[in-house]
C-alpha cells in the first residue's frame, strides 16, 4: 500500500514544467505566412489587373513590356517579392491545412466555419492551379526545361512569350492542346483558370478578413463585420477584374493574333500547326525561333 507520505511535498508527478515558456518561432512563422499571403495577394491583384488589359492586346503587350523593362532586375524582383513570399506562404499554408485539423463544416455549418473550410479548400485549389499556371506560362516553368532540353514530350505546348504576350497567353490558356477551342482539354484549361481566379479572389478576400483578426486590427464582432464588408467589396472588385482578365484570354481571346505596334491587331503569320491526328502539334518552335526573329524585326524593332 502506498500512502501520500511517500510522495512527500513537491510537484504533482504529472505536473508539467511551467517555468520555461516555449520559443516563439511558431509565432513568427505564422505571422510571416500572413505577411507573405498579403504580399502575394497584392501581386495577384496587380497581376489580374494587368491581365485584364488583354481586352486590348496592344495595351496588354505594353504592360508586359513595361514589366520586362526592368530587364535583368526583373528576375530578382520576381523572386524576392513574388516567388519567395508565395513559397513561404504555400509551404506553411500546406502545413496549416494538414496539421491534424478536423474539418467539421458539415456538423457545424456556421458561416465562419464554411469560410474557414473554403479558405483551405481554395488554398489547395490554388496550389494545383498555380503549379500548372507557373509551369506553363512562366519562363521559369516547363518552357525553360524544354528550352534547355528539347524534351519532345514538352514540345507541343504554346509557351508564353513576352514579345507575343497576347497571342502566346491566349494560346497557352485557351488553345494549348488544339486549335479547336472546344477541344475538351482546352475547355478544361479554361475551367481551371476560371476556378483559379475565383479561388484566388476568395482566398485573398477571406485572407484579408482573417489577417485583420490575426494581427489584432479587428476585435469586436461589429468591427469584424464591418471589415468583412470591405473584404467582400475588395473581393468583388478583384473578382470582376479577374473575370475580365479571364474573359480576355479565354472566351474573347483570339488565338494566333499578335498586336501590331501601337494600333489594332494583325494576324500573325505564325506557321500553321501541323495537324497530325492524335498528336497535337508543337508551335513552340515557331515562337522560339522563326517567329521571334521575324516578329522582332516586324513589330518591335520599329519601336
Amino acid at each position, binding site marked *: 500500500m502506498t500512502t501520500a507520505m511517500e510522495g512527500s511535498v513537491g510537484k504533482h508527478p504529472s*505536473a*508539467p514544467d*511551467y517555468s520555461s*515558456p*516555449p*520559443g*516563439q518561432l*511558431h*509565432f*513568427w*512563422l*505564422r*505571422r510571416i505566412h500572413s505577411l507573405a499571403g498579403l504580399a502575394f495577394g497584392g501581386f495577384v491583384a496587380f497581376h489580374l489587373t494587368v491581365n485584364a488589359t488583354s481586352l486590348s492586346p496592344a495595351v496588354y503587350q505594353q504592360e508586359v513590356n513595361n514589366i520586362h523593362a526592368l530587364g535583368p532586375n526583373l528576375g530578382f524582383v520576381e523572386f524576392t517579392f513574388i516567388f519567395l513570399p508565395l513559397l513561404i506562404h504555400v509551404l506553411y499554408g500546406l502545413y*496549416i491545412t494538414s*496539421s*491534424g*485539423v*478536423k*474539418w*467539421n*463544416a458539415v*456538423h*457545424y455549418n*456556421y458561416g*465562419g*466555419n464554411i*469560410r*474557414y*473550410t473554403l*479558405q483551405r479548400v481554395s488554398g489547395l485549389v490554388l496550389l494545383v492551379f498555380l503549379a500548372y499556371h507557373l509551369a506553363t506560362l512562366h519562363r521559369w516553368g516547363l518552357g525553360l526545361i524544354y528550352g534547355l532540353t528539347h524534351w519532345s514530350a514538352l514540345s507541343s505546348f504554346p509557351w508564353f512569350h513576352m514579345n507575343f504576350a497576347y497571342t502566346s497567353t491566349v494560346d497557352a490558356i485557351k488553345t494549348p492542346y488544339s486549335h479547336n477551342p472546344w477541344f475538351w482539354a482546352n475547355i478544361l484549361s479554361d475551367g481551371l483558370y476560371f476556378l483559379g481566379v475565383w479561388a484566388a479572389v476568395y482566398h485573398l478576400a477571406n485572407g484579408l*478578413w*482573417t489577417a485583420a*483578426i*490575426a*494581427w*489584432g*486590427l*479587428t*476585435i*469586436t*464582432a461589429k*468591427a*469584424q463585420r464591418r471589415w468583412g464588408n470591405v473584404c467582400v467589396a475588395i473581393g468583388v472588385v478583384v473578382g470582376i477584374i479577374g473575370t475580365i482578365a479571364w474573359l480576355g484570354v479565354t472566351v474573347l481571346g483570339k488565338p494566333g493574333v499578335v498586336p501590331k505596334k501601337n494600333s489594332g491587331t494583325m494576324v500573325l503569320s505564325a506557321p500553321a500547326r501541323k495537324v497530325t491526328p492524335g498528336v497535337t502539334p508543337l508551335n513552340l518552335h515557331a515562337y522560339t525561333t522563326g517567329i521571334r526573329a521575324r516578329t522582332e524585326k516586324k513589330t518591335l524593332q520599329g519601336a
Partner: protein
Amino acid sequence: MIAPADIKKTVKLNILRQDTPDTHPYWQQFEVPCTPSSNVTSLLRSISANPVTAEGAQVAPPAYEASCLEEVCGSCTMLINGKVRQACSTLVRKIQSGHPDEPITIEPLTKFPVIRDLVVDRSRMFENLKRIKAWIPIDSSYNLGPGPKITPEEQQTMYPLSRCMTCGSCLEACPQFTRDNNFLGAQIFSIARYYNMHPNGKTEKDARMEVLMGEGGITDCGNAQNCVKVCPKEIPLTESIGIIGRAATVYSIKKFFSK
C-alpha cells in the same frame, strides 16, 4: 411553441458506448419515458434506474458526468444529435420538435479521450490554465485592504469572460483543436484576456504572452469562429482572440525592440 402532439410519452436514445479507454465503441438503443420538461440528463438518469435496452437486454447503465443540472458547472457536455451541448439544458421537446419519432443520438466528446461511455478526460483544459498562469497573484490572504477600483464598464467586460465553465464546447467544435495537437483553444485565449485585463493580473501578462505565442498558441487559431457559436455562456470568444492577437503583435514588437 411546441404543440403537445409533438411530445411523445417515450423517446428513443441511441447512445455511443465504450467500456474502457481502449476498447471499441458500439451503439446501444434505449427507449425511455419522457415528459414535456425532460432533458437529456433526466433521460440518462431514467436509464440508470432501469438499464434495459430497446431490445430488452439488461446492461450496465451508461456512464456520464453531471452535477449542477442548470448549465453552470460544465460537467455534462456531450454530443447530442451530432452537436456539442450540455445534456442538462437540452430539453427533449426542443430537439425533438417536428420529428418526435427519430431517436436522439448521444455520443461522448470527440476531442478528449474517452474514459467510459459519455465520460471523457478534460484535464487538458485544466492543465492549460496552469500554463497561462490563470490566477491573480496575491501577497497573502491576510487583510490588506480592498482590491483596485474597477469601472463598471471594465467589470461588464470582465464578468462575462469569467463565466467560462470549462465545459469544452468551444474546443469540441473547433476544427483546429484535436486530440493529438497542443492547441490551447478559445477557452484559454479568453481566460488569458481576462487575467491580462485585471490591474494585478497584468503583472503576469508577459509570461502569459510567451505561452500564447508559443506552439499551440494564438497563431494556431484559424478563425473558423465555431467557438463563439457553441459557447453556452455566450462568451465573446472571437473578440478575445482578436485581443490576444493584438497583444501578441504589440508584445512581439516591444520584445524585438526593447528586450
